[in-house]
């Protein structure tokens, strides 16, 4: 057991790194849908925007200044993009959910194409900031320091989001409106402002995740779809609108993606689908999804 653990330590750690990135992505996606009924299919494209931003600022030598600037700009871009998306989806608020999803799908096609026009079709790699670029020894194995830091950032962010959602008044509003969509307007709060804020923060998490993920995954066309689908699987497994669900789902899918691919490379895709299938057969609304009352 210990021997097996030792052998696969790198894969397990990679799984945690992927998981922590997926959590940052999925929690935004999940809360946006849980609160606002908007399925943002442009989430992956926003991630890619963040990744290319990181490349812009870090390709001439990775510095902390460049890295932090990339994070800051990405956060700003994300907030703005969320605001734009929220304005764009507003006229469709009374139409079926599919229409809003299609709109974001169209936006994601446009964004991905523009990125490939600007940056070309080659995979670009991004260096980690100094001090984190090297490998360190961890439990007797050599492991990239940046990925350890990424796991740490994911954990801190998870703790912050958890405290905000579970312990603050803003969080109470979030939870209430996930449980009952009419709640926001019933409390006399301007629904549109909440939507701008929620989509802004959700999109910001996506672009920031893009910067954080860039030293690991780089930036390339197609990465947006891969990331979007993994994040969606996380959200489905965890349950829409649940922070706890996003965390558990991200950790599970992180391990499936990393450990699963390392141990059983040929059937890893089946494992991903199998995990999804198993969860949905046992819990159709996800592990921590809202309990829907029949007939209501």
């Amino acid at each position: 057991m210990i021997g097996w653990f030792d052998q696969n330590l790198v894969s397990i750690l990679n799984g945690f790194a992927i998981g922590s990135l997926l959590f940052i992505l999925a929690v935004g996606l999940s809360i946006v849908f849980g609160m606002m009924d908007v399925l943002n299919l442009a989430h992956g494209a926003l991630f890619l925007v963040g990744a290319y931003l990181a490349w812009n600022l870090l390709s001439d030598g990775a510095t902390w200044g460049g890295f932090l600037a990339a994070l800051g700009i990405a956060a700003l871009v994300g907030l703005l993009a969320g605001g734009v998306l929220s304005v764009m989806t507003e006229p469709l608020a009374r139409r079926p959910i599919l229409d809003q999803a299609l709109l974001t799908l169209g936006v994601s096609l446009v964004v991905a194409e523009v990125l490939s026009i600007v940056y070309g079709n080659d995979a670009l790699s991004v260096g980690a900031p100094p001090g984190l670029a090297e490998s360190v020894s961890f439990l007797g194995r050599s492991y990239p320091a940046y990925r350890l830091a990424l796991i740490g950032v994911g954990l801190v962010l998870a703790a912050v989001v958890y405290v905000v959602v579970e312990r603050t008044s803003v969080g109470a509003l979030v939870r209430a409106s996930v449980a009952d969509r009419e709640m926001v307007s019933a409390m006399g709060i301007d629904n549109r402002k909440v939507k701008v804020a929620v989509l802004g923060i959700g999109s910001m998490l996506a672009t920031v995740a893009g910067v954080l993920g860039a030293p690991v995954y780089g930036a390339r066309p197609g990465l947006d779809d891969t990331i979007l689908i993994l994040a969606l699987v996380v959200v489905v497994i965890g349950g829409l609108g649940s922070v706890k669900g996003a965390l558990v789902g991200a950790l599970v899918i992180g391990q499936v993606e990393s450990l699963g691919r390392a141990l059983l490379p040929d059937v890893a895709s089946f494992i991903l689908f199998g995990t999804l299938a198993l969860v949905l057969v046992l819990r159709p609304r996800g592990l921590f999804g809202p309990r829907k009352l029949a007939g209501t």
Partner: protein
Amino acid sequence: MSAAVESTVADTPVSADRPDGRRRPPPLLRALPAVLALVLLAAAPFFLAPFATTVLGRVLVFALFAVSLDLLVGVTGLPSLGHAAYFGVGAYTAGLVSVHVTSEGVVPVLAAGLAGAVAAAATGWLAVRSSGVFFLMLTLAIGEIVFQLATTLDSVTGGSNGLYGIPAVRLGGTPLTLAGYVYWFVLAVTVAGFACLWLVSRSPVGGVLRGIRDNEPRMRSLGYSPFRYKYVAFVIAGAFAGVAGGLFAAQVRLVTPSEAGFTTGALALLAVVLGGAGSLWGPVLGAAVVVLVRDALGPTLDGHGPLVLGIVFVLAVYLLPRGFAGLAGVSGALRRRRAARGGAT
């Protein structure tokens, strides 16, 4: 194959005493536009250049694919983002059958349809249990998994290089090498596939599917089990997506993982939305727009056709909530209303 279908979609065949008192034209007259379209399509190779003929063939293939998706999206109300999975399964199956077994006639295409149905049956039982946005996400995940399988199983599929060297379709042992012959083969299968899907949508089961789309809880209280009907629709749609994939393999003779990918599925959905979900003939027009922009306009834009398509997508969602068919429906409704007003006074 357009206006005739629309008129039967809009009206119920038996109600002779129509409230507006307007006589239905005789069946032959109603079928006229469809017959005309068919004659034009069949004659196309005589007056089109080989390249244009090939592009038109691609339009037909993509149209059959989009119409099969419309059975899910428009008729049943199940928006699938992963329908390309079954298109891809069909394309690879037809390609492999052609390479390793035979490329005789419709054999690879039928094998592709069967494979599409089997793949849809295997994955649909899970997808169909969910609804709304969960269905969207699940089908997206299914599509991506097929895409990844196509990329990783390179001993079978040729990996990201694709499956190439697919032999030409043979009829009675003679390979069809001329673009025009291949086009006619594609046209024949597409028309047959469209006819099947149209029959299904006009059948009692099609009626049940529309009922589920409009009001699933009410269908349950009328004694229908929505799951079974949705599952059947999913498998049928998968089968015809597979057939379309088989035609793709026969026409292009190269199958890459992107045939099963996210973008293919999204473009099919665009064709359905653009054409008008639920009308079946609308998505044919939508598919024509999508393929023309991608294949004919794309090269002049450095291969960035998807950029135009993305913009079209965004505009279509705002401006054409019911697609081209919606435009036809609006004028039809206006005519009806005018007729009703005329009858009242």
